[in-house]
């Protein structure tokens, strides 16, 4: 629940999500393991597209639906941050 649970990079990604999707939320309060889509933050496929764009522009990582890991990547803030760290080119 608290910001201490977020690593510095997770907080960076949380800020990216909030900015890219114009959410009215405090990034440090996004629960790292909570689901991002559906009932969690309530994001939809248009958000996924917006978010993928922000990730491509900031980190040079192009998301693919055909990637078998894609569902896991988008499952939570923590998983997304881990995937970006692994695939980033900038």
């Amino acid at each position, binding site marked *: 629940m608290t910001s201490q649970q977020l690593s510095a990079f997770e907080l960076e990604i949380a800020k990216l999500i909030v900015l890219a999707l114009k*959410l009215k939320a405090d990034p440090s309060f996004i629960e790292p393991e909570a689901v991002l889509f559906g*009932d969690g933050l309530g994001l939809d496929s248009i958000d996924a*597209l*917006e978010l993928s*764009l922000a990730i491509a*522009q900031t980190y040079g990582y*192009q998301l693919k639906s055909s990637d078998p890991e894609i569902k896991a990547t988008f499952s939570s803030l923590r998983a997304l941050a881990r995937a970006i760290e692994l695939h980033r080119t900038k």
Partner: protein
Amino acid sequence: MLDAPLIGSYCPDDVLAWEPDGPRSAREFLSAVIILADGLPDRPSVLNLLTSRYEFLVGFAAAMLRRQVTLLPQSRAPETLRRIAVDQESCYCLTDRGEPVHDIPAVVLPARRGSVRPWNIPRIPLHQHVAIAFTSGSTGEPTPNLKTWDALVSVARATAKRLGVNAAGVKGVVATVPHQHMFGLEASVMLPVQQGLTMHAGRPLFPEDIRAALTESPQRSLLVTTPLHLRACLLAGVRLPPIGMILSATSTLTSALAREAEQRFHAPVHEIFGFAEAGSVASRRTVTDEDWRLLDGVALARNGSHAFIQTPYLPGPVPIPDRIAVTGRATFRVLGRAEDQVNIAGHRASLGDLTRQLLEVEGVHDGVFILPDGKEGSLSRLMALVVAPGKTQEDIQHALRRRLNPVFLPRPLVLLPRLPRNETGKLPREALRQLMERWKDESSHDV
């Protein structure tokens, strides 16, 4: 001409569709359609929820052969599907894994493939009712719009002719839009199969998915998409294979974005104007035309300040949900949305209807949906002001998610002790605007 062929002039071995595991020939398609049609239950209508564009087409065609109507819900929100199920009590559904939806019995596509049937393209009577596109009505109940085979075939042919699909040598179609949406059905299913093109079965979302789908499709395919996907492809810096042409719809494309897309992808960018009640009715090449040109066979009619669409394939005049100005014999300009109408990512709704659905949520005493002033080109989301003592934002969002297409979910949803209603019970626009401004200022520290 009292009927039209199910598909265009394919040779039996021509590739009609591209599935993730490879091509489907026209012969394989027709066999799959006939096998499925034989096994469908004897019911008047079908909710076709199949994810693959190709499998959807197999289901749609098989239903037509059995003279069954395919239902196109405006969203998959559980409450929407439940209402359609109640309304169309004797329907069944086609689902990927055969799970029933809200007690509607489900049918799975048979796995058997192969070219077991002789080559014979069936013909469908033009007057046959083949689909119902639901729109959100003023009462909150989904409103059915009946589509004849004539309407779908006419729009597919008129659109292909307007774009010059054959002259440009386009052989395939890739689409990012859903095939259960009216524009998707017309441009990404009917257009390719009536023109004898290869239809990509996928629905690419990310720029990298669009690149992969175009790579699997014939060179210089038609890309059927939306301004959001186009913008993402441009900004993500993805290198797309050569495209024949681009067709965009669902929300207005700015001429700046269209120009950038034409330059980057070396392809003309066309736009379609349409709405579920009438289908596609006009087009323009966005970089050069401000005015929309009616498709062949479509005419405008006026009655006072209201404009209507008239065509031989629609039963009567259909009101246009936007304010327009007629600028020539077959051209018009869009001035703005009609009062109360919103269009979010290609889905239209009336704020009044959305508000009614909000008020049906348990624990909501008062509430209203509003569209904040958005920046040009960016996606605007709706906002809701809600009075619901003892309830949290999450409670209400959760209840709305069951009822509404997710694109209409309010972002943000603001809980208030009361709404600024005047003595007649109305919500003055100015009071709402002030409330929104104040809310924006108070919450700006959040980000």
